[in-house]
């Protein structure tokens, strides 16, 4: 039962990843792509991590997975910010 739940979560997470990837490939400009990527991946990762944590046998492992999720979330947010910022600065440079 628990495994089925976990599998569902992981599948759902994967769907978000695929959606994010499609967005990355199909969206017209960098901001839209970032939007698709960060949003979808953030959620996708959370779902997958949660699913895996359920499957993990020990609480210690679950804790580590949580840590991983936390750091990836923080760094991907920062990355998204930096990329957007860089793109905006570059645009500004082009307008000057």
């Amino acid at each position, binding site marked *: 039962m628990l495994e089925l739940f976990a599998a569902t979560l992981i599948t759902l997470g994967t769907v978000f990843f695929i959606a994010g990837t499609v967005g990355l490939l199909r969206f017209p400009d960098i901001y839209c792509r970032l939007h698709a990527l960060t949003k979808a991946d953030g959620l996708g990762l959370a779902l997958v991590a949660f699913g895996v944590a359920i499957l993990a046998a020990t609480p210690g492992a679950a804790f580590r997975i949580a840590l991983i999720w936390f750091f990836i979330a*923080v*760094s991907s947010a920062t990355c998204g*910010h930096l990329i957007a*910022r860089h793109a905006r600065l570059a645009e500004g440079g082009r307008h000057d």
Partner: protein
Amino acid sequence: MTDPLVIFDLLLALAIVALAIAALSVRDLYAMIVLFVIFGLLSALAWVRLSAPDVALAEAAIGTGVTGALLLKTLHHLRFASGQRSACMTPAIPVPTGVMLANAAFCGLITLGLAVAFLGAPAAGPGFDALVAGAMPASGVDHPVTGVLLNFRAYDTLMEVVVLLAAVVAVWQIERGLSDAPSPEMGEVWQGFARLALPAIVVVGTYLLWVGAEAPGGAFQGGAVLAAVGLLLLLTRAYVPQPHHRGIARGAFVLGTGVFALVALLVAGGGRVAFEYPLDHAKTLILLIEGMVTISIAVTLAALFHGREPVALRKEVRHDT
């Protein structure tokens, strides 16, 4: 029925090859570096599949992480130095397409030959398995890779640290204290992230070093992760290298090599040769060496990223003819 993992392996392999080709053929150098970083991470994944987690860690941290950072820094410098944001850097004489094709065909032939040789080689050939298994109890550590690195083939590892030392000496020699491209302004979010990440990275790095004795990890992986601290400090300009820090930096560069070599030399005696640690102290000595080497690796990698020697800026005399 085929193992589903085989499909995963095949897909991963295809992706790795495709990324390698893409990285070399994409026009934009920035895109090239990004593709390379993905390539490196996927390679590390492939090595995990090949039950080589140590190698995967090293590749991810050093081969991809540090190398990627070095490449990005250089690209930034090149764009700044050439005063433009375009990607084309080299005033190269264009190589005729015919020559390129001939080269490619030549390399293709070589690759084909290597593939044939590889397929003809024994699937799981003879190796050091039995030898290592036999010698592990006397090595002072429990993790075989660490045993090989710091005991059985410690001489290689010492020389590897020497290579690192040579690299930093050469880089300091090459890049004089000229004004560099200013590091980019990254904003508050970045600063905050750095503050958040720093302690975590320190913990992870130290953990990797410590765990190396019995599980994947060790001096190099730990050192590389700690080097990331240095990178963050340099990038956030929380630390700006000063000329008077050079002595300490030099000390840190040579610390690992020096201690390693001294230990190797001093254990000789009483029938033992160099690098032959007395069994009772093997673990302690190895940990000592690993600790010192980790510090050196971390500082050296950070210094390699920073590049130039922090000397007082002055007009440099040039002798171009």
